[in-house]
């Protein structure tokens, strides 16, 4: 009985800790916008000829896409293109990558997520490519 109670308390505390750390960073959609446009959009435009606008997917679709973390139909990952290593590799030619060179991967990921969520088809301010 005591054990169960103690365990519950422990779990609650643990959860509190986890949720606290998750709350510590609130995605900055404006930073996300800059990275999305200057890195994602500009590369998609020049490499594949098609850039995705945030409003081409719904919030749920974006969430699923970012969760699955599959880029180029699973050939590589999305996170890889947000990583510090990737930014370091393109920062000579890409000013956004240079500007965010030292931003932690997780923060930048949250920034981009905030931007696409906000700009999604059913988001607060659907964003096309402009």
């Amino acid at each position, binding site marked *: 009985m005591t054990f169960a109670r103690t365990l519950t308390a*422990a779990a609650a*505390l643990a959860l*509190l800790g986890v*949720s606290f750390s998750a709350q510590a*960073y609130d995605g900055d*959609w404006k930073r996300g916008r*800059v990275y999305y446009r200057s890195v994602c959009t500009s590369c998609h435009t020049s490499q594949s000829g098609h850039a995705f606008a945030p409003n081409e997917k719904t919030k749920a679709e974006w969430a699923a896409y970012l969760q699955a973390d599959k880029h180029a139909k699973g050939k590589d990952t999305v996170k890889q293109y947000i990583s510090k290593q990737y930014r370091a590799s393109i920062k000579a030619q890409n000013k956004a990558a240079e500007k965010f060179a030292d931003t932690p991967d997780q923060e930048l990921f949250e920034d981009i997520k905030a931007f696409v969520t906000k700009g999604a088809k059913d988001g607060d*301010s659907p964003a096309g490519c*402009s």
Partner: protein
Amino acid sequence: MNRQLARWAFCAILVAGLPGVGVLGSAALADEAPPVKLNSTADHSKFKELQKKLESGPDVTRACLSCHTEAAKQVHRTKHWKWEFLNPQNNQKLGKQHVLNNFCISISQNYPFCTGCHVGYGWKDKNFDFTVEENVDCLACHDTTGNYKKPAGLAGHPAYKPIESPPGSGKILQPPDLTKIAQKVGKTTRDTCGSCHFYGGGGDGVKHGDLDSSMAAPDKELDVHMDATGLDFTCGTCHSTSSHDVPGSRYKPTAIDKHDAHIRGKVGQGNPATCQACHGNTPHKEHPRLNAHAEKIACQTCHVPTFARGGVATKMSWDWSTAGRKGPDGKHMTKKDAKGHVIYDTRKGDFVLGENVKPEYRWFNGDITYTLLGDKVEKSDIATPINRIAGSPADGRSMIWPMKIMRGVQPFDPVNKTLVMPHTAGNDDIGYWKNLEWEKAIADGMKNMDAPFSGKVDFIKTEMYWPITHMVAPKENAVACAECHTADSRLKGISGIYMPSHSNKGWLDLLGWLAAAATLAGVLVHGAIRIVMSRRK
């Protein structure tokens, strides 16, 4: 006993360890990262005033004012609130309350639509009470989420329930979460200022030409200062504001600024939004010749080579006289150009749009005289100036400025010879956009202003000057010497300047070349005779 101890120990490890994972996780983030967004000493989400359900705009403002007690009083004194500006030079009463333009013409009887861009709530007719503090809209300028929207037609209120916006579009606008927005307020940004100033004239980029949505996060090519990946200036970096009064108004521009770069603490330094306020008057360290140019030429003339550069077109002309034509189906119609820009709208007439537009140039000393309601206008081939800019090469305070000159054809009263203010917007049986009857619409708009209207309607050519100052290009893209120093110069027709390669005296060249040619002919003949004579020998 031992078992119980072990159990406790196990639990203790769990208790200590599990949150430890969480803490570790956050510690890892914190170690890597510079602290997030510590540009404010206050996290508004922690304020209990903002932790209740805020139902309406004035609700939010009341909460704001409970701490920022003087803020509304400050706002009440500004152009942003009053939409009124008294030009101290000529005592003209300007501001959106009073002026006409050649876009949507005026706010008279269109209040609930136009005041979607007012920093207030509820300005739905001319009886709006400008003294009510809770009617100040804090969020219009201080929203950071980008989700605070004030649709046209609601007199400055955001939507409080889902509405169709624009009406008839089938698009449903959800009401913003005011509590959440209020908890995240911050300093003004390009996005907040831009939510109105990018859309002046009724749409993206329509009015200014150097301000449109591409400036929300521009690259360096579009604007060196606001470059989102570089200097990342906000509007307020230059229009540096205190007491909510934003300096740098187009109603009384600073055309020439002989001040040095501003220094903290020094008084009387003038408009902080000029180029010179930071760069001084001799910014070209390696090219003193360019400093000499800057004695007569505004910085913007060379450094803003073209406007509407960010992919958003701006309106260059608007002909209201062709409005009213319906489609074959008897309904309102629009025509689009190859790029998808609307170039004809039954409700509005013909438009000409421009991208990458080279400005026109004029001597300008900052004095502007508006043609206001009641001022006599004469119909002729020469366009009536909506705002007359003054300037000359000789007055010692003019510079050559780049201008967007908006050209229009708009309704006027041919009997009273005045411009008119029609009631255009609105879902009623008067507004022109719904009913397409000028007489009724103008009579209503004029009545609202207590201005006489004969009942007759004709159309008059007008033009309006918009000094260009944003979209400053990187120096490599500044206007090159030869774009002005050539026969077909950008500054063609500008009086009072001598430009090598452009302003030559034809007769001097003729005389000079004749003298050279005569000499050449003389020596050739002389030489030929010498050769012939020596051959004879």
